[in-house]
């Protein structure tokens, strides 16, 4: 375990993330230019999809069926568990709880990538359809959490809450009433979704032969680009450290314990669904991760009463680094333990 942890700590990915955090802490103005950040994320998502598609074209439907079911199940369970814990134990408002639950019910592609790199570095074989599972896990959690938020807050509204507490969706105003439908469209057509799903399709159709000439670009450069991306993620996470106080102890604990629980559940379900040790590790990392690309704008638009400081700080400054540093190795141990 310690060996695995040390190896993980000394990878360029983790170190670059740490460098980014450190740069913020010493108040450096270092930051990746906006378009470079966007370019890197476009590249990473498309490359991830592309490779996933090429590998998917070699998988049988039978092999994917149960893992896909299990993944969708996780997409339905994790937002609910998150919401309940945040409301009951954390005493968060319905909006805040739903906003956070949307993040924890969805998935962080970079956590997926870190888990993939981690497993590969340890020589664990990975199922070729894992990127497909990633796309399945991205949106259901967001919609379930937002729906819960809408319903709960409307109940609260009927029970006498002021207008400010009710989500826009429920106030029957022209532009807001379309909230959920709009969000559904937006999440499904979001940049990240199109790049991932589109990459999968392109990869699946073009296959090994078509992939060969673009492989040096999309595969050879991948880890280096990911390293630079993690530098920027460290910078962004570092700039949120100051918000940890505002987030409070409960949220810090939630951002660490909830991923462990979701990770454990995913390892169990993944094992039951027939995934390998590496596959279980990656699935657990997905379930344990909190979205910070797809979820924030969706939540901001649909549940504007939810405090963004909570969900941005929790996913970026707590759960992401936790998973990167300790979570992924932990899920790996769990997966090995359950498999053997």
């Amino acid at each position, binding site marked *: 375990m310690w060996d695995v942890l040390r190896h993980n700590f000394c990878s360029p990915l983790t170190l670059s993330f740490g460098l980014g955090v450190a740069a913020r802490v010493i108040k450096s103005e270092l930051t990746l230019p906006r378009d470079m950040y966007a370019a890197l994320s476009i590249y990473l998502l498309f490359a991830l999809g592309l490779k996933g598609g090429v590998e998917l074209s070699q998988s049988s439907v039978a092999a994917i069926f149960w893992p896909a079911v299990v993944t969708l199940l996780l997409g339905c369970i994790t937002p609910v568990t998150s919401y309940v814990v945040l409301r009951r134990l954390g005493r968060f408002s319905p909006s805040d709880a739903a906003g956070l639950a949307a993040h924890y019910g969805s998935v962080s592609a970079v956590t997926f990538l870190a888990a993939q790199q981690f497993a590969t570095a340890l020589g664990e074989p990975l199922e070729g359809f894992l990127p497909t599972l990633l796309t399945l896990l991205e949106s259901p959690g967001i919609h379930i959490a937002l729906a819960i938020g809408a319903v709960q807050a409307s109940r609260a509204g009927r029970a006498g809450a002021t207008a400010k507490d009710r989500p826009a969706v429920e106030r029957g105003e022209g*532009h807001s009433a379309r909230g959920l439908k709009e969000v559904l469209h937006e999440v499904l057509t979001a940049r990240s979704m199109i790049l991932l799903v589109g990459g999968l399709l392109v990869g699946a159709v073009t296959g090994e032969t078509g992939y060969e000439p673009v492989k040096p670009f999309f595969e050879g450069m991948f880890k280096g680009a990911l390293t630079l991306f993690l530098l920027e993620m460290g910078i962004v996470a570092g700039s949120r450290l100051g918000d940890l106080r505002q987030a409070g102890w409960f949220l810090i604990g939630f951002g660490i314990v909830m991923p462990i629980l979701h990770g454990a559940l995913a390892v169990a379900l993944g094992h039951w669904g027939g995934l390998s040790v590496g596959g279980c590790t990656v699935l657990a990392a997905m379930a344990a991760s909190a979205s910070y690309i797809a979820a924030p704008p969706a939540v901001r638009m649909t549940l504007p009463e939810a405090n963004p400081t909570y969900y941005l700080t929790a996913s970026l400054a707590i759960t992401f680094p936790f998973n990167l540093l300790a979570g992924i190795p932990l899920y790996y141990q769990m997966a090995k333990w359950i498999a053997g």
Partner: protein
Amino acid sequence: MQTTPLLKVTVVAEAVLRERLIEEILSAGATGYTSSAAEGDGSRHLRSGDLPGDNVRLETIVNEQAADRLMTQLATQYFPHFAMIAYTTEVRVVRGEKYV
């Protein structure tokens, strides 16, 4: 040079609202708008999206009634929940008939 006195409404808001605000601008009766990227800080210290600090600046040149409609809509529907600022400036526009 013959010019028409009109109002310019400027809105600086969280970037996530861009498309919605453009809809509001057009449905208030504007014939066009200009949008550009901005950063900023204000009373709410909060921003959304994947990168912090992201704002959008929208400007539209309209007559007084459209300005009023737009500002009212912003004040009631957006100000309570979103980080934003909105104000009008008096301008004199070339070929102003176009924008009324």
